[in-house]
């Protein structure tokens, strides 16, 4: 009888541990998906495109890119390489093998560079019309 009770406790503990393991793997999976390079690259590229499209010349904007910096650092991408602008095409790159492009229609001359004072920001500078 005692042996049977002991077996029940062990199987319940195993069941609870497995459930907790399952839930933590699931939470980790959801967190990883939400903070993955593909999602962040797209989100930042589109954000920057919208900021540039709605900006007027001689404007300086600061964009908080803390999550992108963290991920890029982990993947060996330097801060200067994260955002690049070629003609009217923005590219955000957070891993060696990925990158997301999005174009903007505002015909302006833009400079982008990481902020040296505030470590989490990227500076988007609208210099003038082309």
């Amino acid at each position, binding site marked *: 009888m005692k042996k049977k009770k002991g077996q029940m406790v062990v199987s319940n503990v195993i069941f609870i541990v497995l459930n907790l393991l399952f839930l933590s793997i699931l939470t980790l999976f959801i967190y990883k998906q939400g903070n993955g390079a593909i999602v962040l690259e797209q989100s930042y590229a589109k954000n920057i*495109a*919208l900021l540039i499209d709605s900006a007027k010349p001689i404007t300086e904007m600061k964009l908080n890119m803390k999550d992108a910096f963290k991920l890029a650092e982990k993947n060996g991408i330097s801060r200067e390489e994260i955002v690049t602008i070629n*003609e009217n095409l923005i590219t955000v790159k957070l891993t060696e093998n990925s990158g997301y492009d999005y*174009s903007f*229609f505002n*015909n302006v001359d833009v400079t982008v560079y990481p902020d040296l004072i505030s470590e989490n920001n990227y500076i988007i500078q609208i210099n003038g019309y082309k």
Partner: protein
Amino acid sequence: MIKLQNKRGGEEILAMYWFAIILIIAGGIYLMIYYFYGTPYDIRDLESRILMNQIADCVSYGGKINSSLVLGGIFSVNQENFLDTCHLNFNSSEWDVEQFYTEVNFYELDNLENSSFMIKKGNEDWEANCEIQEGEDYEKLAQCAEKSFYSVDETNNQYIIKILTVVRKSEKNVKL
């Protein structure tokens, strides 16, 4: 003895049942997450509104029509240079064909049926999408924004200006 064997069998079936439930839940959550994060952010509505506002600011600023477009009641705008005048660039190496279209109509107050002057720029193919703004496939089509406002030129001729902007870029904003 037979009873004990039945009980063990029942426990095994229950364990398999739990295992199946967990697999179904995990599969369901995986599919939901995959669908949620696999669907691109659709910013075309914002883009078309920003484009519309940029064109509105270019055509008329502070209630006065841009003098390089209308002077003394005469439309002097060069259709070819309209995008340059408004500092817009519809071309991109990202796309083979232009993904934008815009149409600006000037109506005199005594004749709101027929426009006195019209400016069309971009890819006209996307204009037809604006007529279908509902249904299952609506999101896959180009997104449109429209607004009209009142303005006067330098000699106080009054106009209603209607602006239509269309942004396609479906491949980058919708799961096709």
